[in-house]
């Protein structure tokens, strides 16, 4: 892959803007509430703007890696600071920018320990940005860990239902996943004979088939834990329920995509023979996850649990797309990563507004919210319709691509996945009906609807969802430009 | 037969003393008795050193020098051990090894 060096270190700025935000926040005091929030918003905003810049500024005709920055870090071990943008990660960088920006806006009303909250939040997002842009396995893993560790504190202090159990479970489970990743990475590192962590160079090495098969399993299962691959998904609903709103937005919206993206970027890229060997199994797990997630979601009564299981199901669609190994499938999988990320962020953001006021997420208690706060309800209903696969929203195109290519490669699994669309619609609409329609619960009748300022993050998310729903080619052309060489290189 | 001119005699002697000392360390309940047994083991080691020195490598008289070392070290160690036993006694009011089990997990 050709590398085009960046004239201006855009990606490093994107990565370091949150770090700068953290440094400034360390010197502020808790009482300066407005300033704290503004600093967080500005640093998130800078990253967001730069992410839009890389998304728009990527030259598809030129191809290859662009905005590349490469500095040797530890020569003895072959570690370089190597970041770049291509069609595969540009949408995900954009997604991260969107979610962190809207996330900061969503948490505007947080009251306790705001400064520390934003410090940890920005630390988390630094890790996320880093993972998406790294092409050196060491830094990839380093940022991966940075993205996981602050979760513990964020959930523990600012979380809700069963936060102690959830924080511990989530963090230890993800650490266990990391424990599976390290052997995989080191296996590839030591058997390559090149003593480098640079992914592009490692790609050129033809590893022995047995190494590829074993390394692939380690990497797939390890990253799969973060991607909520069935059956390693149970941390996800519990964790999302317990986490504060913007953390859920980031986590379900972006972090779970880290796992799938890593499967694509590391496991499938470096171990193609291993992927071919395990593809059927991957497809099976993904199909099970899709069907499973919708059925279990049907029985839930807590809004966030419903969204959590919906995420498991949609991530199954990503996994299914990856498992097909075709151009359409991979295109659909990456598109779904973006589309689902925006949709889930919108879901959690909408729920957050309601929860902040009513302090309940029980769908049997919340009735008729549409009457009380029509605009806030409209946000959730829009997200629910997107989840049900209504055209005009971005995830429709993604699901279309994945499901059609799945039917081609795994007929039975693909048809099962299509059949689950019905149950998906049922559980989305059931939740909407119980929480937002019917008679309003008199306890909540006095709450006000969302103000324009608080509506802003949700409108941004809806805007992106509908924009890419109406003009999917904008996103797809970009994704395609890197997937096609990727498949050819496999 | 007990030949005082042979190496084996003194090795047997050291072995017997060491075994008695080891047995004492492992089975006595009184901490001071344990200390005495440790001294016994140290002396057995000294005999061993001197025996080898005398029969196998007489010049220089390293074994005897080492024995002096051992005595000095033993003295220092006895001092420390006794102060520890004093501290334990102050805490537990007894010097029974079976009662000093605070680190039990």
């Amino acid at each position, binding site marked *: 892959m050709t590398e085009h060096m960046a004239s201006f270190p855009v990606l490093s700025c994107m990565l370091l803007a949150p770090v700068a935000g953290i440094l400034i926040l360390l010197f502020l005091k808790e009482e300066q509430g407005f300033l704290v929030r503004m600093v967080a918003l500005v640093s998130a905003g800078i990253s967001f703007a730069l992410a839009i810049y890389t998304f728009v500024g990527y030259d598809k005709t030129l191809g290859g890696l662009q905005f590349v920055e490469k500095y040797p870090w530890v020569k003895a071990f072959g570690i370089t600071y190597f970041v770049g943008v291509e069609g595969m990660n540009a949408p995900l960088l954009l997604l991260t920018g969107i979610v962190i920006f809207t996330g900061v806006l969503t948490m505007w009303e947080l009251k306790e320990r705001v400064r520390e909250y934003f410090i940890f939040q920005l630390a988390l997002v630094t890790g996320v940005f880093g993972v998406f842009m790294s092409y050196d396995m060491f830094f990839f893993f380093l940022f991966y860990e940075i993205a996981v560790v602050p979760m513990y504190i964020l959930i523990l202090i600012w979380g809700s239902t069963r936060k102690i159990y959830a924080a511990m479970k989530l963090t230890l489970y993800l650490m266990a996943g990391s424990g599976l990743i390290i052997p995989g990475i080191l296996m590839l590192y030591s058997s390559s004979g090149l003593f480098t962590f640079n992914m592009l160079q490692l790609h050129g090495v033809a590893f022995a088939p047995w190494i590829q098969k074993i390394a692939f399993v380690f990497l797939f299962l390890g990253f799969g834990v973060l991607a909520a691959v069935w059956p390693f998904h149970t941390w996800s609903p519990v964790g999302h329920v317990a986490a504060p709103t913007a953390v859920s937005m980031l986590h379900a919206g972006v972090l779970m995509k880290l796992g799938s993206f890593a499967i694509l970027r590391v496991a499938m890229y470096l171990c193609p023979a291993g992927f071919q060997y395990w593809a059927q199994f991957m497809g099976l797990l993904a199909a099970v996850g899709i069907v499973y997630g919708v059925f279990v979601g049907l029985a839930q009564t807590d809004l966030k649990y419903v969204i959590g299981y919906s995420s498991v199901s949609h991530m199954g669609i990503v996994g299914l797309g990856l498992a097909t190994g075709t151009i359409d499938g991979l295109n659909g999988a990456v598109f779904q990563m973006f589309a689902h990320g925006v949709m889930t962020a919108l879901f959690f953001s909408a729920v957050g507004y309601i929860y902040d006021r009513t302090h309940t997420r029980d769908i049997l208690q919340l009735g008729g919210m549409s*009457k009380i706060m029509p605009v806030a309800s409209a946000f959730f209903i829009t997200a629910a319709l997107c989840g049900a696969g209504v055209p*005009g929203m971005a995830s429709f195109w993604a699901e279309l691509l994945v*499901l*059609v290519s799945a*039917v081609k490669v795994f007929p039975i699994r693909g048809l099962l996945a299509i059949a689950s669309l019905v149950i998906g619609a*049922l559980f989305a609409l059931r939740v909407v009906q119980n929480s937002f329609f*019917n008679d309003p619960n008199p306890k909540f009748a006095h709450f006000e609807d969302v103000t324009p300022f608080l509506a802003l993050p949700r409108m941004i998310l809806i805007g992106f969802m509908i924009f890419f729903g109406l003009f999917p080619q904008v996103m797809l052309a970009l994704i*395609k430009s890197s997937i096609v060489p990727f498949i050819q290189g496999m | 037969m007990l030949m005082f001119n042979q190496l084996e005699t003194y090795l047997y002697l050291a072995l017997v003393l060491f075994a008695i000392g080891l047995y004492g360390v492992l089975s006595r309940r009184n901490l001071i008795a344990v200390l005495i047994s440790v001294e016994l083991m140290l002396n057995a080691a000294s005999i061993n050193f001197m025996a080898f020195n005398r029969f196998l490598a007489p010049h220089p008289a390293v074994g005897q020098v080492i024995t002096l070392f051992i005595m000095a070290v033993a003295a220092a160690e006895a001092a420390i051990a006794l102060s520890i036993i004093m501290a334990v006694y102050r805490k537990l009011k007894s010097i029974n*090894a079976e009662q000093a089990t605070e680190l039990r997990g």
Partner: protein
Amino acid sequence: MGSVDCLFSICTAIVTLPLLAFALIMIFTWRQAKISLAISLTCSTISLILAWYLFITVRDVSLAHPIIRQVEWLVSSEGFKIPFGFLLDPVSLLMLVIVATISWLIQVYSIGYMEGDPGFARFYADLSLFGMAMLSLVSANALLQLFISWELVGLASYLLIGFWYEKFSASEAGKKAFVVTRFGDIGFFMGLAFLTIYFGTLDITAVNLAGLKNTMPQWLLTTSSLLIFCGVAGKSAQFPIHVWLPDAMEGPTPVSALLHSATMVAAGVYLITRLFPFFAASPTTCSVILAIATITLLLSSTIGMVARDIKQVWAYSTISQLGFMAMGLAAAGLIGGNFFPGYYHLTTHAAFKALLFLCAGVFIHHFGTNDFFVMSKLGGRTLKIPMITVTIGALALAGIYPFSGFFSKEAIMGVLWSLPSKLWVGFGIFGAFLTAYYTFRVIFVLLFPRPDHHKAWGEYYEVPASAHGHGAAHSHGHGPHGDFSHDDAHAHKDTPPGHQHDEALDPHGHGGEGGHGVPWVMSLPLIVLAGFTLVLGFLQGRLQGYLLGDHHPHELNTTLMVLAVGAALTGIGMAWRDWGAKGATWQGFIRNFPALENFFIKKWYMDDFWRWFLDTVIYGFFSKWFTYNDRRVVDGGVDAVAFSCSGGGRILSFLQTAFLQYNLLFMVLVLAGLGIYLLMGL
């Protein structure tokens, strides 16, 4: 070509203007009724004018030479390209005109019907969304664009059925409609997937060509056409997934008129027409469609005979007429005919069914009840224009000369007659009899109410609950699942909760302008549609020529005509005897078979079946066991790992005895072992 590009712009305008209206209203003006109305009506009018313009000016098209214009909307790889564009040929042009006209008429009608409703702006936004989706559906060139529009039409239907969302029955009905049609749509999706993978393209003209020339492998043809028919069955309410349509009457009557009689439910039949060569190439599929359509025709007619809610009667009538259309198309496919009979009936049905619904709407709006027996008591026959037009519509539905229904029904009967087995045409004639019966039951009840002291009023006249100022009959759901089955014996009210107060003040309907008669915005569409009903019959030859490109001389099958008209007249006669005559008892002849009557009232237990399926199979089995598995097995496994770690640690801690001598002993043993090992090794 310059003119083609101009056509493309016009088509794009027709489709996107309503979308623009939807977006503008939902984002900006959803609190202002008048401005929203203006936006929506303007866009609808422009679409209407452009559609008629296209219909009139685009003359040099035919089925064999359509005008196609499209752009690549989504390009994923060489094998997967999704275009967005238009296919203009006589079939789609005619349907464009039908949809645009009826949409416009409904929007005008709703000015009067929905006046004062707090969700007025949202209603027009949803109507515009529907308009856009339906127009895109009928003019689509690629099956995928059609599918997308199909789904969007379903979305609009969901929003409109559940329009009065505070009412449990309404939100429940909306959800039911969406989920049941989605159930059919997954079959549609699977069929499309197969076509994409094994045939390579979803282009409508290519698929039809393959059907005509038989270039597609038979298994692919049959499988994909059967799967696509699943979608048709969902959208056009064929057995067994017809159960959503009667419940959809929870929506406001304009919605029922537009979506659930004339246009949206016709989309399924339109799809069969659109893909007629494709469907016709597979005799298996045609036979299946014929069988299912016949069951639908008869099943819903029997239920219509015992319903008391006027909208329910028209709903079941719609279901059965859709079955009749499908019968016509399937039979034509089997004998090598053409789609004209089925499509012609679609056209005439759109006009008279919308007319029937709008008339019903006038009555409902005026009297505040859906039960036509109550309307009769309250003086339904006094509203002149609606009464005349509803009779015209009923005569057309029953198939009486000179109304349009006569011609289109006769066309379909002709095709059925040509089938090898006369069984089908027999069913068709029986269906005609039932249709005439239940239609004129309504008309005669309305026209000839019994005298006040007649004992029939004991059964049929219940004071509507709203007249006492109570709220509408809510059936509150039990738990999160709710109750799908409604008892048809009692009238539904589809008036919104907000209107309850009016009834408390004036039990004879709305005061003010309602008391003077029907507002002109509501009677204008009635008159226009009645006009269409009168005229369309005589345009049969011209339409056939336009659509098919040749003028088949119309052979007159006298036997068939006599049988069909005879059946219709018999039905009317029996209805007269039971409901209209001086000494009529107001007991349907079906009362003589109480078991049957109960079976029909229970809607052939279909609702109960699906309710059972949902509760026991989906919720009770799959959902429950998957959740149990998740919580106990999978999650339990993870928790077990965690607990075993801490448990194992607790066990291992027993090694920490803290006995001095045990530690020393252990040390000695290890040293001894090491010593022996080294000595042995050395």
